[in-house]
């Protein structure tokens, strides 16, 4: 029995098997978008769900998603201005995405995925996620009358699970979903394929085009709401960044609204040094999303996901990327609660933690939008998470967060002036992206244009890198 199961799971490593299952489970034939070299037709992929903008907006409205408030964070802005040079300290705004059904922006992605699954006649949906997306898919499946299975990487080999992940499992079950909880390891993808193969359900992948299209409404609403309240689009939008869907969808929505001057800034929690597939390190981090463990590899290797081509392509859209420390985010969570009266989940405040030091350097006439918030609750709360960290041997103290070492300690700043961001060298990342693909570059014009669009590097800069190989 056990022997048969072992063979079965590893059998899903076979490329043809994967292609067959994903074609059935997504309805997208990814082969049709491929060029002969390294590139593919990204615009055609994004058009492939064949849903009109008006359809996306009305689908979300029907399923209790979108049109969330854009609040002025007057308390946090007051703190920023208290420590800024004269004439500096931008107004910070918060797009309160916790107001969506299921309590996060992930409902935007899930609503569209589940609606498409239903229209195409699937009996159920499956998603692999230990984050808010699971609750979002479960909530949408409940509303739209489909069955739902959520796969989570949940426990280490001791059977210990992060409180935040356990809370998300509870939420999924509250919405009537089946939750498959797995131990640590990349075999999550093989298990997903097995479940898709067995059930014939739709793959509500986070990396499919509809998942990104669903976030475009978020960027669009931000631009529209800012124009209504202030007569112009925001100067900067700060986005909590992990897999890239949030950045990609929000930026595309801003562009759709004509907000071409708005800077899109990604913010991720620094988890450098922790290996995401390590059983021993799994519970030594306090963030299960919005962190560099996902964000960095996805920048230059976006296609290492659960579909053949990732619709989330952050390098195409990012103007700037910064990291913050775990302690900064817990600190920002306290500031939001105690100075703006909003208790929101910690991980979703990654963008807020970055926006505070960013706003400090901008003129006081500038508008900085923090583009998401998420619900807070048992397990998804700084006290629960710091207690869990201490139980796993992590030291918690006050000092300079930049001196913290992920997996060993969490350092909170002594006051808001101690909050900083560290810039990621995006130019180097863009060049690395091209270098990685030079070996398979087929010298076609299509590939050259693809790499330039992927990286936002000038064509001649791309040429220089590929010819130097």
């Amino acid at each position, binding site marked *: 029995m056990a022997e048969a199961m072992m063979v079965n799971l590893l059998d899903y490593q076979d490329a043809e098997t994967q292609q067959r299952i994903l074609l059935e489970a997504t309805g997208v034939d990814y082969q049709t978008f491929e060029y002969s070299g390294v590139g593919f037709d990204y615009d055609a992929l994004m058009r492939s769900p064949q849903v009109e903008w008006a359809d996306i907006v009305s689908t979300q409205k029907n399923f209790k998603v979108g049109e969330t408030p854009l609040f002025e964070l007057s308390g946090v802005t007051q*703190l920023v201005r208290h420590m800024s040079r004269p004439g500096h300290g931008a107004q910070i705004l918060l797009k309160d995405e916790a107001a969506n059904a299921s309590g996060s922006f992930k409902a935007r992605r899930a609503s569209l995925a589940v609606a498409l699954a239903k229209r195409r006649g699937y009996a159920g949906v499956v998603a692999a996620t230990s984050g808010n997306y699971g609750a979002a898919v479960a909530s949408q499946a409940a509303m739209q009358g489909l069955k739902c299975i959520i796969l989570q990487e949940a426990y280490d080999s001791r059977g210990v699970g992060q409180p935040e992940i356990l809370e998300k499992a509870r939420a999924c079950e509250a919405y009537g979903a089946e939750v498959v909880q797995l131990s640590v390891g990349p075999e999550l993808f093989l298990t997903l394929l097995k479940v898709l193969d067995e059930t014939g359900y739709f793959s509500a992948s986070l990396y499919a085009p509809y998942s990104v299209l669903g976030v475009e409404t978020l960027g669009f609403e931000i631009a529209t709401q800012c124009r209504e309240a202030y007569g112009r689009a925001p100067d900067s939008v700060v986005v909590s960044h992990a897999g890239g869907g949030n950045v990609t969808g929000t930026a595309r929505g801003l562009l759709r609204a004509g907000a071409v001057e708005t800077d899109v800034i990604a913010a991720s929690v620094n988890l450098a040094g922790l290996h995401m597939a390590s059983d021993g390190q799994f519970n030594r981090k306090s963030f299960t999303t919005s962190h560099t463990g996902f964000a960095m590899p996805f920048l230059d290797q976006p296609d290492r996901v659960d579909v053949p081509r990732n619709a989330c392509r952050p390098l195409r859209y990012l103007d700037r990327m910064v990291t913050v420390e775990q302690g900064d985010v817990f600190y920002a969570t306290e500031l939001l609660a105690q100075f703006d009266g909003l208790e929101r989940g910690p991980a979703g405040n990654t963008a807020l933690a970055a926006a505070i030091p960013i706003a400090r350097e901008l003129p006081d006439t500038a508008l900085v939008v923090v583009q998401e918030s998420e619900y807070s609750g048992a397990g998804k709360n700084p006290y629960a*998470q710091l207690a869990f960290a201490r139980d796993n041997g992590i030291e918690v103290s006050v000092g300079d967060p930049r001196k913290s070492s992920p997996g060993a300690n969490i350092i909170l700043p002594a006051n808001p002036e101690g909050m900083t961001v560290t810039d990621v060298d995006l130019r180097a990342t863009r060049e690395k992206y091209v270098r990685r693909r030079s070996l398979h570059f087929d010298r076609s014009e299509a590939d050259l244009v693809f790499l330039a669009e992927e990286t936002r590097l000038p064509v001649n800069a791309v040429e220089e890198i590929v010819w130097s190989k």
Partner: protein
Amino acid sequence: MPARKGSFVRVKCLLLEPGNRKSGIPEDTANVAYEMRVAGYLAEDSSEGDQVQITTVTGRSVNGALEDAQPAYTHTFGPIDPVLHEVGPRVKAWLKR
């Protein structure tokens, strides 16, 4: 702990033995089993530790060891953390400086 047929329980299943994991993963992960936990309705009267069959809420049959006859949500808001608890008062004092 015994569990009655039809009750909602959680099972644990061995998916991959230690040493038979996907190649290229960290050593500490490769050296432990790959496990799955799923909850569902129990097919027969059983006790914790027994090999059992369950039917999940989506109607799938899953075989595994009965791990928990009465699954519970035990995650909490946590104890008050002394470092975090000081943040609000400290920042209020800082604002007055």
